Protein backbone atom coordinates (compact mmCIF):
# COMPACT_ATOMS: atom_id res chain seq x y z
CA UNK A 1 0.00 0.00 0.00
CA UNK A 2 1.21 3.44 -0.87
CA UNK A 3 1.14 6.18 1.75
CA UNK A 4 2.32 9.77 1.99
CA UNK A 5 4.40 10.85 4.97
CA UNK A 6 4.76 14.51 5.89
CA UNK A 7 7.24 15.94 8.33
CA UNK A 8 7.40 19.57 9.48
CA UNK A 9 10.61 21.41 10.38
CA UNK A 10 11.10 24.95 11.59
CA UNK A 11 13.91 27.28 10.61
CA UNK A 12 14.52 30.96 11.18
CA UNK A 13 16.21 33.09 8.57
CA UNK A 14 16.40 36.63 7.32
CA UNK A 15 16.00 37.95 3.82
CA UNK A 16 15.46 41.06 1.76
CA UNK A 17 13.40 41.05 -1.40
CA UNK A 18 15.19 43.09 -4.01
CA UNK A 19 15.76 42.58 -7.70
CA UNK A 20 18.72 44.14 -9.50
CA UNK A 21 16.61 44.17 -12.63
CA UNK A 22 14.35 46.86 -11.19
CA UNK A 23 14.95 50.46 -10.20
CA UNK A 24 14.88 51.46 -6.51
CA UNK A 25 11.34 52.80 -6.98
CA UNK A 26 10.16 49.66 -8.75
CA UNK A 27 11.67 47.51 -6.00
CA UNK A 28 9.88 49.51 -3.34
CA UNK A 29 6.64 49.38 -5.29
CA UNK A 30 6.93 45.61 -5.86
CA UNK A 31 8.22 44.44 -2.50
CA UNK A 32 7.03 47.14 -0.10
CA UNK A 33 8.34 46.60 3.43
CA UNK A 34 10.16 43.46 2.28
CA UNK A 35 12.53 45.73 0.35
CA UNK A 36 13.94 47.28 3.58
CA UNK A 37 17.71 47.27 2.88
CA UNK A 38 18.55 45.85 6.29
CA UNK A 39 16.35 42.82 5.78
CA UNK A 40 13.88 41.13 8.10
CA UNK A 41 13.23 37.54 9.19
CA UNK A 42 10.72 34.74 9.49
CA UNK A 43 10.16 31.50 11.33
CA UNK A 44 9.66 29.29 8.32
CA UNK A 45 7.86 25.97 8.60
CA UNK A 46 9.15 23.51 6.03
CA UNK A 47 6.84 20.61 5.24
CA UNK A 48 8.35 17.75 3.30
CA UNK A 49 6.01 15.11 1.89
CA UNK A 50 7.42 11.82 0.66
CA UNK A 51 5.58 8.76 -0.57
CA UNK A 52 6.17 5.09 -1.16
CA UNK A 53 5.02 1.60 -0.42
CA UNK A 54 4.66 0.86 3.29
CA UNK A 55 7.36 -1.74 4.02
CA UNK A 56 5.58 -4.74 5.59
CA UNK A 57 8.63 -5.45 7.76
CA UNK A 58 8.78 -2.00 9.36
CA UNK A 59 5.34 -0.51 8.69
CA UNK A 60 7.08 2.56 7.30
CA UNK A 61 7.32 4.52 4.05
CA UNK A 62 10.82 5.42 5.18
CA UNK A 63 12.55 5.57 8.52
CA UNK A 64 11.95 8.97 10.08
CA UNK A 65 15.50 8.93 11.39
CA UNK A 66 16.75 8.99 7.78
CA UNK A 67 14.42 11.83 6.74
CA UNK A 68 15.20 13.87 9.87
CA UNK A 69 18.93 13.24 9.44
CA UNK A 70 18.79 14.39 5.83
CA UNK A 71 16.71 17.46 6.64
CA UNK A 72 18.99 18.52 9.48
CA UNK A 73 22.16 18.06 7.50
CA UNK A 74 21.08 19.47 4.16
CA UNK A 75 18.30 21.93 4.95
CA UNK A 76 18.42 23.16 8.53
CA UNK A 77 22.22 23.42 8.67
CA UNK A 78 22.13 25.30 5.39
CA UNK A 79 19.29 27.74 6.05
CA UNK A 80 18.60 27.99 9.78
CA UNK A 81 19.78 31.29 11.30
CA UNK A 82 21.19 32.47 8.00
CA UNK A 83 20.72 35.51 5.84
CA UNK A 84 19.23 33.94 2.72
CA UNK A 85 20.50 36.73 0.44
CA UNK A 86 24.09 35.69 1.17
CA UNK A 87 23.63 32.10 0.00
CA UNK A 88 24.80 31.17 -3.50
CA UNK A 89 21.32 30.10 -4.70
CA UNK A 90 20.09 33.63 -4.00
CA UNK A 91 23.06 35.45 -5.48
CA UNK A 92 20.83 36.18 -8.47
CA UNK A 93 17.41 34.78 -7.61
CA UNK A 94 15.32 36.83 -5.16
CA UNK A 95 14.92 34.88 -1.88
CA UNK A 96 11.15 34.81 -1.99
CA UNK A 97 9.51 31.85 -0.35
CA UNK A 98 8.58 30.62 -3.84
CA UNK A 99 12.28 30.39 -4.69
CA UNK A 100 13.17 28.93 -1.28
CA UNK A 101 10.51 26.27 -1.84
CA UNK A 102 12.02 25.35 -5.22
CA UNK A 103 15.57 25.27 -3.77
CA UNK A 104 14.57 22.97 -0.93
CA UNK A 105 12.59 20.75 -3.32
CA UNK A 106 15.67 20.42 -5.53
CA UNK A 107 17.92 19.54 -2.56
CA UNK A 108 15.56 16.80 -1.34
CA UNK A 109 14.80 15.54 -4.83
CA UNK A 110 18.51 15.25 -5.67
CA UNK A 111 19.79 13.89 -2.39
CA UNK A 112 17.14 11.89 -0.55
CA UNK A 113 16.79 8.39 -1.94
CA UNK A 114 14.81 6.55 0.76
CA UNK A 115 11.37 7.59 -0.56
CA UNK A 116 9.81 9.52 -3.42
CA UNK A 117 9.55 13.28 -2.88
CA UNK A 118 5.98 14.44 -3.46
CA UNK A 119 6.17 18.09 -2.54
CA UNK A 120 7.64 20.79 -0.36
CA UNK A 121 5.33 23.24 1.36
CA UNK A 122 6.58 26.27 3.26
CA UNK A 123 4.70 28.47 5.68
CA UNK A 124 6.44 31.83 5.69
CA UNK A 125 4.02 33.09 8.31
CA UNK A 126 0.81 31.65 9.68
CA UNK A 127 -0.97 33.44 6.86
CA UNK A 128 1.23 32.66 3.83
CA UNK A 129 2.16 29.26 2.48
CA UNK A 130 3.73 28.02 -0.73
CA UNK A 131 3.93 24.58 -2.33
CA UNK A 132 6.15 23.14 -5.03
CA UNK A 133 5.83 19.64 -6.42
CA UNK A 134 8.26 19.86 -9.32
CA UNK A 135 7.19 20.93 -12.75
CA UNK A 136 4.25 18.56 -12.79
CA UNK A 137 1.30 20.33 -11.25
CA UNK A 138 -0.36 19.19 -8.05
CA UNK A 139 -2.96 16.54 -8.72
CA UNK A 140 -6.36 16.52 -7.08
CA UNK A 141 -5.46 19.18 -4.53
CA UNK A 142 -2.93 16.93 -2.78
Amino acid at each position, binding site marked *: *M*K*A*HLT*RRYTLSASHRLHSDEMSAEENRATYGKCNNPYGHGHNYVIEI*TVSGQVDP*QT*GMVCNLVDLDGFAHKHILERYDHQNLNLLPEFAEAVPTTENLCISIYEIVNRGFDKAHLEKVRIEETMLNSFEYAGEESLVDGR
Partner: protein
Amino acid sequence: MVYLTRKAEFAAAHYYHNPAFTPEENLRLFGKCNNPNGHGHNYTLEVTVKGAVDPKSGFVVDLKQLKDVMNREVLDALDHRFLNKEVPEFFTQIPTTENIAIAIWQRLAPKLTTAKLHRVRVYETPDLFVDFYGEP
Protein backbone atom coordinates in the same frame (compact mmCIF):
# COMPACT_ATOMS: atom_id res chain seq x y z
CA MET B 1 -17.25 17.46 -6.62
CA VAL B 2 -16.90 18.87 -3.12
CA TYR B 3 -14.50 17.63 -0.44
CA LEU B 4 -15.54 17.59 3.19
CA THR B 5 -13.17 17.00 6.10
CA ARG B 6 -14.09 15.98 9.60
CA LYS B 7 -11.53 15.95 12.41
CA ALA B 8 -11.38 13.79 15.51
CA GLU B 9 -8.86 13.06 18.21
CA PHE B 10 -7.85 9.89 19.93
CA ALA B 11 -5.17 9.02 22.46
CA ALA B 12 -3.47 5.65 22.28
CA ALA B 13 -0.36 3.73 23.27
CA HIS B 14 1.86 1.68 20.99
CA TYR B 15 5.36 0.38 20.42
CA TYR B 16 7.25 -0.76 17.35
CA HIS B 17 8.56 -4.28 17.25
CA ASN B 18 8.95 -6.93 14.57
CA PRO B 19 9.33 -10.44 16.01
CA ALA B 20 11.17 -11.49 12.84
CA PHE B 21 14.07 -9.22 13.82
CA THR B 22 16.57 -9.71 16.63
CA PRO B 23 16.27 -7.43 19.69
CA GLU B 24 19.34 -5.54 18.45
CA GLU B 25 17.83 -5.01 14.99
CA ASN B 26 14.55 -3.87 16.53
CA LEU B 27 16.35 -1.35 18.70
CA ARG B 28 18.47 -0.09 15.81
CA LEU B 29 15.46 0.29 13.49
CA PHE B 30 12.88 1.61 15.88
CA GLY B 31 14.95 3.32 18.58
CA LYS B 32 12.93 4.64 21.50
CA CYS B 33 9.72 3.43 19.85
CA ASN B 34 10.85 -0.14 20.55
CA ASN B 35 10.26 0.15 24.33
CA PRO B 36 7.97 -2.88 24.94
CA ASN B 37 6.06 -1.10 27.68
CA GLY B 38 4.75 1.31 25.08
CA HIS B 39 4.40 5.05 24.84
CA GLY B 40 1.51 7.19 23.68
CA HIS B 41 0.36 10.00 21.45
CA ASN B 42 -2.56 12.32 21.04
CA TYR B 43 -3.48 11.48 17.49
CA THR B 44 -5.53 13.77 15.30
CA LEU B 45 -7.54 12.13 12.58
CA GLU B 46 -8.83 13.93 9.50
CA VAL B 47 -11.29 12.09 7.31
CA THR B 48 -11.97 13.65 3.92
CA VAL B 49 -14.88 12.47 1.81
CA LYS B 50 -15.86 13.64 -1.65
CA GLY B 51 -19.06 13.71 -3.61
CA ALA B 52 -21.61 15.75 -5.47
CA VAL B 53 -23.69 18.19 -3.42
CA ASP B 54 -27.18 16.83 -2.99
CA PRO B 55 -29.50 19.50 -4.45
CA LYS B 56 -32.16 18.87 -1.83
CA SER B 57 -30.07 18.91 1.35
CA GLY B 58 -27.09 20.92 0.12
CA PHE B 59 -24.87 18.26 1.71
CA VAL B 60 -22.07 16.10 0.37
CA VAL B 61 -22.74 13.88 3.34
CA ASP B 62 -24.80 14.15 6.49
CA LEU B 63 -22.13 15.17 8.98
CA LYS B 64 -23.91 13.43 11.80
CA GLN B 65 -23.81 10.14 9.94
CA LEU B 66 -20.12 10.62 9.17
CA LYS B 67 -19.42 11.44 12.80
CA ASP B 68 -21.35 8.37 13.96
CA VAL B 69 -19.45 6.09 11.58
CA MET B 70 -16.11 7.56 12.69
CA ASN B 71 -17.03 7.13 16.34
CA ARG B 72 -18.29 3.59 15.93
CA GLU B 73 -15.70 2.20 13.54
CA VAL B 74 -12.58 4.06 14.62
CA LEU B 75 -12.68 6.00 17.86
CA ASP B 76 -14.46 3.37 19.95
CA ALA B 77 -11.81 0.86 18.85
CA LEU B 78 -8.69 3.04 19.09
CA ASP B 79 -9.25 5.75 21.69
CA HIS B 80 -7.51 5.06 25.01
CA ARG B 81 -6.25 1.69 23.82
CA PHE B 82 -2.87 0.00 23.64
CA LEU B 83 -2.89 -0.55 19.88
CA ASN B 84 -0.52 -3.56 19.82
CA LYS B 85 -2.55 -5.43 22.42
CA GLU B 86 -6.14 -4.38 21.82
CA VAL B 87 -6.67 -3.64 18.13
CA PRO B 88 -6.70 -6.77 15.92
CA GLU B 89 -4.95 -5.14 12.92
CA PHE B 90 -1.92 -4.51 15.09
CA PHE B 91 -1.59 -8.03 16.50
CA THR B 92 0.38 -8.77 13.32
CA GLN B 93 1.26 -5.36 11.88
CA ILE B 94 3.37 -2.65 13.51
CA PRO B 95 1.14 0.27 14.56
CA THR B 96 3.12 2.93 12.72
CA THR B 97 1.28 6.06 11.63
CA GLU B 98 1.29 4.61 8.09
CA ASN B 99 -0.42 1.40 9.21
CA ILE B 100 -2.86 3.29 11.45
CA ALA B 101 -3.94 5.43 8.48
CA ILE B 102 -4.41 2.32 6.33
CA ALA B 103 -6.36 0.51 9.07
CA ILE B 104 -8.65 3.50 9.55
CA TRP B 105 -9.27 3.67 5.80
CA GLN B 106 -10.14 -0.02 5.73
CA ARG B 107 -12.53 0.40 8.65
CA LEU B 108 -14.28 3.42 7.13
CA ALA B 109 -14.37 2.82 3.38
CA PRO B 110 -17.00 0.02 3.39
CA LYS B 111 -19.24 1.91 5.81
CA LEU B 112 -19.47 5.16 3.88
CA THR B 113 -22.32 4.94 1.44
CA THR B 114 -23.34 8.43 0.31
CA ALA B 115 -19.92 10.04 -0.07
CA LYS B 116 -16.71 8.40 -1.19
CA LEU B 117 -13.69 8.30 1.08
CA HIS B 118 -10.96 10.50 -0.39
CA ARG B 119 -8.23 10.71 2.22
CA VAL B 120 -7.39 9.59 5.72
CA ARG B 121 -4.83 11.80 7.43
CA VAL B 122 -3.40 10.83 10.80
CA TYR B 123 -1.24 13.22 12.82
CA GLU B 124 0.94 11.43 15.33
CA THR B 125 2.24 14.81 16.49
CA PRO B 126 1.62 18.27 15.01
CA ASP B 127 4.88 17.83 13.05
CA LEU B 128 4.32 14.35 11.65
CA PHE B 129 1.40 13.05 9.66
CA VAL B 130 0.53 10.39 7.11
CA ASP B 131 -1.97 10.58 4.26
CA PHE B 132 -3.56 7.49 2.76
CA TYR B 133 -5.66 7.72 -0.40
CA GLY B 134 -6.54 4.04 -0.71
CA GLU B 135 -3.78 3.45 -3.24
CA PRO B 136 -2.54 -0.13 -3.59
